[in-house]
């Protein structure tokens, strides 16, 4: 009985089991790759699940065209190293209309470039299952989401009508057009993710580590000036500060935290001693109460 597994070993095994189950039961799965730390762990687990074979599904990145440049570089490096096939999808309609976080506000922008973009890609390639890196500890409405989360043909999530999920027996049945979002990291917490990255030496985007970067203060957040599309408003000045990111997304919407933590243990140390949750750096959650739940019903990941 001394052979009891540690919490990380158990979480890892559960995730691998989930990933294999999808491959065994779906025709056309895809892994949504958002380049962040959760995606990094998910991709690592996918490699483990099928080792020595490559994972038998592609990665999908829904590119809003506003990602940090370092994220894109990192993405291309990881794809090369891991041998995954990568599909990059951009909502060209949104681009043509000039939708940007500055002109249309964070809510509409996210809806068009992220949610719409994702739906377009899922429809175009007819994926019947899509892995996502969401965790239940991230947000209240996620706490009730299933690991295999059913989506109607128009990608809607119905929180009142979820399939009961017992043991590790997942109902994978869908009709044509319907799909399942699969969350292999459902039971991981932010701390679990960091500990696992540390233990397994998983590469992550350098933006997670503190470095001196150009930032401006806007709406109480530190926004990095990642390229020349960020126009300064009157009174704003570019400052050079040692900052890092707890969560990564579109650079105009992602707040940096001032930090000197430039090693993984230091990041974990800071996380353990800090008193704000990681979603705080995301502009979209603050829009309205229950906003994440509304977005999810509409198909946001």
């Amino acid at each position, binding site marked *: 009985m001394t052979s009891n597994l540690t919490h990380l070993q158990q979480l890892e095994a559960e995730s691998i*089991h989930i990933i294999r189950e999808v491959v065994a039961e779906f025709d056309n799965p895809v892994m949504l790759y958002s380049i962040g730390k959760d995606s990094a762990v998910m991709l690592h687990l996918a490699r483990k699940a*099928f080792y020595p074979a490559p994972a038998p599904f592609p990665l999908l990145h829904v590119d809003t065209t506003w990602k940090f440049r370092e994220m894109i570089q990192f993405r291309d490096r990881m794809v090369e190293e891991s041998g995954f096939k990568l599909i990059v999808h951009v909502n060209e309609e949104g681009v043509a209309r000039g939708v940007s976080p500055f002109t249309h506000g964070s809510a509409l922008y996210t809806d068009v470039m992220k949610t719409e973009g994702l739906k377009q890609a899922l429809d175009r390639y007819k994926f019947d299952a899509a892995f996502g890196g969401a965790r239940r500890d991230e947000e209240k409405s996620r706490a009730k989401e299933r690991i295999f989360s059913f989506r109607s043909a128009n990608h809607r999530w119905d929180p*009142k009508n979820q399939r009961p999920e017992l043991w590790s027996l997942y109902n994978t*049945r869908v009709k044509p057009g319907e799909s399942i979002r699969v969350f292999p990291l459902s039971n991981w917490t932010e701390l679990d993710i960091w500990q696992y990255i540390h233990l397994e030496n998983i590469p992550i985007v350098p933006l997670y580590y503190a470095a001196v970067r150009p930032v401006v203060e806007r709406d109480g957040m530190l926004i990095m000036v990642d390229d020349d599309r960020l126009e300064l408003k009157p009174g704003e000045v570019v400052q050079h500060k040692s900052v890092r990111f707890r969560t990564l997304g579109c650079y105009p919407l992602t707040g940096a935290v001032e930090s000197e933590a430039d090693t993984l243990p230091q990041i974990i*140390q800071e996380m353990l001693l800090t008193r704000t949750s990681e979603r*705080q750096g995301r502009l979209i959650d603050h829009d309205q*109460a229950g906003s994440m739940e509304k977005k999810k019903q509409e198909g946001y990941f």
Partner: protein
Amino acid sequence: MAHQSELIEKDILAYLKSQEEKSLLRFITCGSVDDGKSTLIGRLLWDSKMVFEDQLAALEADSKKVGTQGGAIDYALLLDGLQAEREQGITIDVAYRFFSTDRRKFIVADTPGHEQYTRNMVTGASTAKVAVILVDARKGLLTQTRRHSFLVSLVGIRHIVLAINKMDLIDFDAEKFRRIEDDYREFAEPLGFSSITALPISALNGDNIIEKSVNTPWYSGPTLLQFLETVQVEDDRAGQPFRMPVQWVNRPNLDFRGFCGTIAAGTVRPGDEIRVSSSGLVSRVDRVVTMNGDLDEAVAGQAVTLTLKDEIDISRGDMLTVPEAAPLFTRHPEAHLVWLHDEPLRPGQLYLVKSATGITPGRVTDVPYAVDVNTLEQKQVTTLGLNEIALVRLELDRPVPFDPYRENRDTGSFILIDRFSNATVAAGMVSEAVELESHKAQLAELEPETGSAWTRRISLSELSATSLNVVDLTAEYGTFILEAPITLLAHLEKGNRVLFRLRDLGQLPAVALLAYEHNLAFEFDRTLEGISVLLFKRGNLPQDKVDSDTGTGI
């Protein structure tokens, strides 16, 4: 978080090291509406400092808007996630919450106490090792308390915390507390829990949740968190005979054929003998493959990839086990069924049965009796409605490997899926197989022919019909001739192999003669268990079944 902040500040690497050995405990809270489940979990998260400042700000704002505490902090709001629920003020589904201390990580299933939500409780309990059953100290045991206790026992939970809540409202009265505890122990006796721990608490004020309460000097037991941190949830699976449902066959190239799955019981090492549930074929483990290197041993709970010494036909749907303790392999399991759907069970109708080894079509043929969850009495029924529980008999389209649920939750459980709506309509727990079908080939003895009375003929006619590939000759004495019917030869032609277990070397000529007559090859093996001979058609190695590996059969 309840972590050693000093160590974190001084020596983060030492801290991280100390966290690597942390264990994981899943538990469920149950009780009637308003007994305080959400408040209790909110409190645990709060006190173990899993609530961050920004969440606290949101919680304060929400408490003013929709809280039940007159504007003061309502911990339940941390839990009642979905907007619709917040407006209604009740929990309507299962929510999973996480917190951790230095010793353990906890996953809590918060389940509703509403009458009609047995379904959610069974769902939450299915993965839990401990149940915290809440009782309102003012009300004592209710029908729901009994129902929840029965359900958690049915689902295999062995450890109960009887959390007698709202002690603040009865002035922390020791007498009343003891009466409720005694009542409960008497009631729960037949349910056979391994442990029952009664705690006097106030979820709202935090008494005996993390720290010992000054209000209960008469109570000397652990606080809730102390109990949860130290309770030994025996993972006896590691000590049981090895089992691994084959989830996926990994075949990247001709040189590698790995069987992926999560070990459901026991341990496995290179060199171990394993048996395939469907064919009865036996081989040995060659490697236990992982990306971090081959393992010398893997244990229950781990997700691994095994390669075998022999190239035998194995696909999703099979279970690999130790040869001495094979699982039930049956088309007729008997099981407790919890009905989870509004649409009642239709006996005789085809459903999809999903078990650890995949999906098999099947039907419920018989409902011997239903169980009244309130009185535990058995009653006659013709069908099952939402939240009802019964013992049923199933008929599956093909045999499926199972263990009794009480021995193994993973290999003893299944769900029923409606073929048309794809809804998950029921949860099943196997009690046994109705009639154990023999795994061994039937050896029909023919009458000795005149003139050759000393040579018996043994016909293998049953073999190919049942596709069971083991012939056990260890009980046979004397000389004999083996007769292979045309169906068996066709079976071998398709790439199947037949394993003969011999009592001694004297039986070898009979097998060799069979091979000689029909142009077959064989492999001879001597193992600790005895002598075996694998008979097959040369040049017709087993077919690659990776592509046809959907496991659905429909």
